């Protein structure tokens, strides 16, 4: 069985899933759909690993039909990650319907399968038209999931917002790719065709593609839809969206932007780095202020998108300066971070699905006290939180360490602009990592630990078996990725080396047991060693505590200044993150209102508006509306106006046609 056969199996399973979940009514349809998703995920993961190991490229399909599928190392790497997330999400879905899936939940199942289908096709498409078809299919599946599959009240608005932003970015992508498709419809031909184009045109294509792919991954300034979309869709599907489908944007950047033939100007890489770094900070600043676990995870996705993109920016810079090892280390760190983020985000959203169904809410003000009653979900959430806050020995640590180390190679470029930009971006990402700790301690601590803040939370229980299994699986993947980062890099070698045209992974894994950022002798980390050290110290401490424990021990109530203990004297999420909110007020504008109620006391409300919503989206939307209002006046409906337009146009044509012909 070749890897390609496996990918066909994955595609087939997921197409079947879409069809079946429509056809079979009731819970059975839903379950079959998620089974198909899980099966597809399993097949895709296997295909990805197998494909990377086999180190060969597979092609199928005919270009006359514009259906050409190609599985090379890069595609395999992404299919593997997407497949793993789909497997976890599918397993969770089989376990039972979550409360945030509407009615029978068949829509959730079918949209999940559709998203998986579109993602696979994007990664496999070797034809520009197929690529664009799959891209649009993904956008529509997102809309369908957000607007129709969930129970949240904000679904229609969130869906519209998503659709709008996705299509603005898709428009840019369409323009760029269709221009490229003039030279030939396969991806290779299209990319080769740009080599003859002027530098200005190349830069325009680069910007258009960056906008196009940025809209999908939540790159500034197109990130606004993520919090709304991830909140409105059912969390099981969001696990797939945020963990799996998001990555096709990175795939697109790697395939197309890195595919643009050299020379590439330096400012491309510097722009990408800067945009990524700013996005990282604004994203995580927003996360720290959120009251709902899903929106916190959404803002964290924005942050990670920023980090990954800035790693890709490092690689672009390396490409412009012909430093192949820099290219390689940038791509390697991006890929590790992508994998770590995918699995951690998947765990996070599956955890949110659990919270919503079992603990009654995903709002921090209503959670807490779940460590004993929902141990697997809590453990999974903590592992994911550690990873996203870049704490060893999880995968997120390995990824961010590599990214920061890659930034530190700036001195090798001997270019002032690069050194300054890299220094600032590294500082920004460092700050983002610090704020991430606040956000994720809030997530794990306020959300799961302490005492319950509501009756629903105090009566919560772990769900039916497959749910915790799925969470444990993806959390285990996060941990494994952290500890086995070295072997994972070895697996990805064909993909990394293929784009960087240098033996990067060999350089990174030159010495056994440790990873170096490609350049020898600079720095190193041993994820396996770190993991062993942490586990070892933990074990030693536990043994020492047991052996030398004082014989007398007494259980007594918590000390609360002499008053009896009351569970509602706990700190809340807003209080915990308040200092961060105050310091970062420039990025997250917080409004607080205290309203006097008649004889009853006061009502306290606070709301956060991300800085970008106020300064970018609002003016943009209002000016767009103004322009369209102005243009609408031309469509007056009066026949005399239209006749005038035809007359004017004919005159213009007669005047300019001769000169047009010569052009």
């Amino acid at each position, binding site marked *: 069985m070749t890897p390609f056969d496996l990918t066909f199996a994955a595609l087939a399973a997921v197409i079947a899933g879409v069809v079946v979940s429509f056809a079979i009514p009731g819970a059975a349809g839903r379950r079959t759909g998620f089974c198909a998703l899980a099966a597809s995920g399993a097949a895709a993961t296997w295909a990805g690993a197998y494909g990377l190991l086999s180190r060969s490229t597979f092609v199928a399909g005919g270009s006359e039909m514009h259906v050409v599928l190609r599985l090379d190392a890069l595609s395999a790497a992404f299919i593997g990650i997407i497949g793993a997330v789909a497997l976890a999400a599918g397993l969770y879905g089989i376990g039972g319907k979550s409360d945030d899936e509407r009615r029978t939940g068949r829509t959730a199942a079918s949209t999940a399968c559709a998203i998986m289908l579109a993602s696979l096709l994007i990664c496999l498409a070797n034809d520009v038209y197929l690529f664009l078809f799959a891209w649009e299919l993904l956008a529509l599946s997102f809309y369908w999931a957000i607007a129709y599959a969930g129970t949240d009240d904000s679904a229609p608005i969130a869906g519209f917002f998503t659709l709008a932003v996705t299509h603005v970015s898709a428009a840019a992508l369409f323009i760029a790719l269709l221009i490229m498709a003039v030279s030939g419809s396969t991806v290779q031909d299209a990319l080769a065709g740009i080599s003859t184009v002027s530098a200005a045109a190349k830069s325009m294509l680069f910007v258009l593609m960056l906008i196009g792919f940025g809209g999908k991954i939540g790159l500034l300034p197109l990130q606004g839809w993520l919090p709304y979309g991830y909140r409105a869709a059912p969390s099981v599907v969001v696990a797939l969206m945020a963990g799996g489908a998001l990555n096709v944007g990175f795939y697109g950047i790697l395939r197309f932007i890195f595919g643009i033939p050299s020379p590439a100007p330096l400012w491309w890489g510097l722009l990408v780095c800067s945009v990524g770094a700013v996005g990282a900070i604004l994203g995580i600043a927003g996360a720290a202020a959120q009251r709902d676990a899903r929106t916190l995870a959404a803002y964290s996705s924005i942050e990670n998108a920023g980090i990954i993109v800035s790693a890709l920016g490092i690689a672009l810079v390396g490409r412009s300066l012909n430093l192949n090892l820099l290219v390689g280390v940038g791509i390697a760190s991006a890929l590790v971070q992508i994998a770590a983020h995918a699995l951690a985000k998947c765990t996070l959203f599956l955890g949110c699905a659990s919270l919503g169904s079992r603990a009654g809410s995903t709002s921090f003000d209503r959670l807490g006290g779940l460590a004993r009653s929902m141990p697997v979900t809590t453990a999974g959430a903590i592992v994911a939180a550690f990873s996203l806050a870049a704490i060893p020995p999880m995968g997120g640590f390995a990824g961010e360490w590599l990214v920061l180390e890659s930034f530190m190679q700036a001195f090798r470029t001997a270019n002032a602009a690069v050194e300054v930009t890299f220094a600032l971006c590294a500082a920004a990402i460092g700050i983002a990592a610090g704020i991430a700790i606040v956000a994720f301690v809030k997530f794990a601590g306020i959300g799961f630990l302490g005492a319950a803040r509501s009756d629903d939370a105090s009566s919560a229980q772990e769900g039916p078996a497959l749910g915790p299994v799925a969470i444990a699986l993806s959390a285990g993947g996060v941990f494994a990725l952290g500890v086995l980062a070295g072997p994972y890099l070895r697996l990805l070698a064909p993909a990394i080396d293929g784009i960087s045209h240098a033996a990067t992974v060999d350089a990174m894994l030159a010495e056994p047991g440790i990873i170096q950022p490609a350049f020898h002798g600079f720095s190193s980390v041993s994820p396996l060693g770190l993991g062993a050290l942490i586990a070892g110290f933990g074990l030693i401490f536990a043994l020492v505590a047991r052996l030398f424990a004082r014989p007398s021990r007494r259980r007594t109530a918590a000390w609360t*200044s002499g*008053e009896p203990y009351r569970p*509602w*004297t706990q700190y809340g999420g*807003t*209080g915990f993150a308040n200092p961060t909110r105050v310091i970062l007020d420039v990025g997250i504008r917080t409004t607080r209102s205290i309203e006097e109620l008649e004889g009853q006391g006061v009502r306290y409300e606070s709301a956060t508006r991300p800085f970008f919503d106020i300064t970018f989206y609002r003016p943009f939307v209002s000016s767009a509306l103004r322009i369209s209002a102005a243009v609408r006046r031309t469509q007056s409906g009066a026949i005399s106006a239209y006749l005038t337009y035809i007359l004017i146009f004919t005159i213009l044509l007669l005047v300019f046609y001769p000169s047009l012909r010569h052009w």
Partner: protein
Amino acid sequence: MIANLRADEAAELATLKVRDGARFLWLFCERVGDATIARYVVDRQGRLESFEGVATPGTRSLSKDVPASRWYEQEARYRYGVDFGGPSDEPSIVKAPEADAERMRRALGDEVSTVLYGPIRSGIVESACWVIETAGEDFICVHPSMFFKHRGLEKRFEGVRLELAPLIAEHVSGVTPSSHATAFCRTVEAALGIDVPKRARAARAILVELERIHQHLDSLAKLADDGSLSVGSALTFAAKERVHRMLCDATGHRFARGSICIGGVREDVFSSLSQSAVRMLDDVEREALSALEGLFGTQSLMDRLVGTGRLSQRTVSDYGGVGPVARGSGVVNDARLTDGWLYTRLEAEEARETEGDALARARVRETEIRRSFQHVRNMLDAAPAGPYRTKLSEGSLRGEAAAFGRVESPQGELIYFVRYHNGLHRVAIRSASFANWPLFVPSLPGNIFTDFSFIEHSFGLVQAETDR
């Protein structure tokens, strides 16, 4: 005093006076036979006027018209069962054993968390509980839960020999015993028409002023401690220690307890104070003023106090604030001015600030300390001759009378009421701390948690005299 009214009518009279510009002072109750009498006390241009009436169910509540009456009504509601204006949904300030803090929460909103601060707080502080509703570090709603230290002292007076009764007054507030003993003695002396010789009055005044000095130094030292100014705090506490040593040298007790009695002072306190002053007063004054100079020259401490716990003049006069707390916001109602009290050359405007923040209150205390040293020296120089005590004859102890007496304690205006009928029948105490605590809650919003102890110490109130 006007009797034979219903409490509603008495309340009405009091409200009218307040509207005319009088200052609302006090509302307290008394059980006379089966009936409960409510007594409203106002200050009109320096003179105390009171109106009493029989409290009936549904006696009207003054708290809407006169915010200063709120806490008095609450305590009367709890202790005497008088329901002013019907059942109240306002959280009670009285910590009854059954009271649950849950019912005190008043801020709605998911983000609000509640902190129970007390009764046992960190450091060497008196017991009181605060229910603080916060969204993080700010104060949304704050409710005091007091009277953990209620010791039934007002009742303890009843039936006690006049010879020993001032000792009970000294127990009400052990840190300001001279003010309490003086106020109690003045009240009984006013009721029984006992004349106090000048030498005794001078001795009492000197003790009250020295008390003012050591209590103000205590408040400033605690502010310095809150601001982590360890050396400043230590030197200020050392200055306070010197005052106590001087008092011990002169009277045999570090807080000068057991010196004041009805009719004067127990021994020739004036001459022992003079002798101690000759040896020690210069050092005490120099150290105190040096500490003050240091504290007010430390910018980091001043920065913490500026703008903290601001009280407007309007709020202070509405709630009936007294003492340094009121002076800090520009409201002066010093009992030394109104009660013809041996103070020569005391100007009303001298220790008056307008900012209303913690720094203003600290500056008021600084000025008062300086002026108190001057008063002490002036009175020692004046050296009135004569007896130090009027002996009480058997005849003077018979009779039926009631009176009020006021003293400016370090915390502010302290009022005693005594009803005498061949013995002490009812003693009621309105301490300055009780009058000023209602101002604490409005001073908190706009500040953050760490400002709490700064504001508390800038108020400098004593829980023991509040809870009695």
